[in-house]
């Protein structure tokens, strides 16, 4: 036997492919985005309206069957300014990543804020969605280009403090 260095590491590449099925509720949300609309779903028990619902109320564990069409406008509940470059970054830094609570919804989601200097972002800022051109709309969150200030006065802290 010839003397050999012990093997200390081996690479075993693995790739698994999947077909993603959105489900009943998420399909409704995605079809809404395809039409340039935000779709919310209301819990029959606690009456909360969830955006991008997976079909159940996470508090009550019951189907959120009632469909609620939500407006284009909402409030920034909190945010961060991204200054760090990373692999695959598609937006020029610095940019603003915010949690947005649509009017009439009880759950916020993450969105990009544009058309404002980064140092002017603040909690409570009122924003509106900017959609892609109608011919580019699809069943994806990429149908929303970004959010921008809509010029309304800031929301009162009391109206969104529950969603931080």
């Amino acid at each position, binding site marked *: 036997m010839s003397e050999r260095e012990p093997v200390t590491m081996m690479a*075993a590449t693995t790739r*698994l*492919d*999947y*077909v993603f099925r959105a*489900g009943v509720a998420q399909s409704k949300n995605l079809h809404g985005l395809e039409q340039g609309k935000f779709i919310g779903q209301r819990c029959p028990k606690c009456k909360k309206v969830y955006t991008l619902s*997976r079909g159940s109320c996470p508090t009550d*564990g019951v189907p959120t069957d009632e469909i609620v069409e939500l407006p284009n406008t909402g409030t920034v509940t909190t945010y961060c300014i991204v200054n760090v470059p990373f692999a695959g970054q598609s937006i020029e830094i610095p940019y603003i990543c915010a949690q947005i609570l649509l009017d009439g919804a009880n759950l916020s989601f993450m969105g990009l804020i544009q058309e404002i200097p980064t140092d002017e972002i603040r909690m409570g800022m009122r924003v509106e969605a900017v959609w892609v051109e109608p011919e580019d709309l699809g069943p994806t969150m990429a149908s929303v280009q970004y959010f921008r200030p809509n010029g309304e006065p800031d929301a009162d802290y009391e109206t969104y403090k529950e969603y931080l």
Partner: protein
Amino acid sequence: MSEFPGLVSGRRPVGVVSFAQYDNVRREDARNEVEMLMPVVAEVFGNIGITKDDVGFICSGSTDYLVGGPFSFVTALDAVGVWPPRAESHVEMDGAWALYEAWVLLQEGEIDAALVYCFGRSSPGDLSEILAVQLDPYYLAPLWPDPTSLAALQAQAMIDKGTATEADFAAVASRSRRSALSNPKAQVAYDRSPEELLKEGYEVAPLRRHALPPLTDGCAAVVLAAGERAYELCERPAFITGIDHRIETHSVGARDLTISPSTKLAGAKAGVGAKKVDVAELHAPFAHQELILSEALGLADGVAVNPSGGALAANPMMSAGLIRIGESARAIWSGQADRAVAHATSGPCLQQNLVCVLEGV
């Protein structure tokens, strides 16, 4: 005072008091995992008139490898609703092992009831590839052996040793699929003789199509309750008198695949042989594995093996083991059995095995 059976495992009598399962299907296209689980959780509570507020612990079994996304067990909790916060745990295993964890917690005596659920779909990915990833990462996984080929090596080893024939495999499949005709949740059920089944061509020799499990999307849930609480929720609880699980080496090549020492040991620890067994629900995804398991558990000729059709009738990943416990409990609730043995397996060629003995009073 209510009457409880003598216990081989544990000190506190814990009974299966409710069971529900999804309609086992080849491909659930419309619903996501949460949407599949919600009706099952609602049914398992609804059967006995309780809600999530009546259980002190929730334990689930599933794996992200089937979903293709991280933390799928966390999002699955939305099917129960866990606000205000609940005591909860998860095992990356079949729901039968989640039931084991809940049983251990119930032994401690601080809670009286627990919900156990599990989910697994075979349809989003390529199950043969996904199951290869669980193998030993150095020598076996890089070869990507599919589970049918590994099971075929096991079946061939039985033939070579003279412990079974292809006709024996066909007899198991014929009986299981005929039993499955009376199981409304069965995915594959038919009345065909072993002779007819032997006319099929090989999938992977010596296994023909009939010896293979179906690919299934499904989920299941069980409620456990301890002591007097079990009788409040169920007229005749299926008490767990013995439960144990054992594992063999990761290396398939280092095992004698024709026997199942881990099942034998778990069965002995759970007290299978102490009294007469009426019903055995064995988690044998491939027909020949039922023969290995029956031998390891020392089941007598009169035992009704897999009256539900077993995993040959429906094989939802991460759930087919818990379903064996649920089906055994149903046999006790109905009076069809006084004592039942449920078995669950995990890993290639019966690597890991859980045995649960259930008794009614």
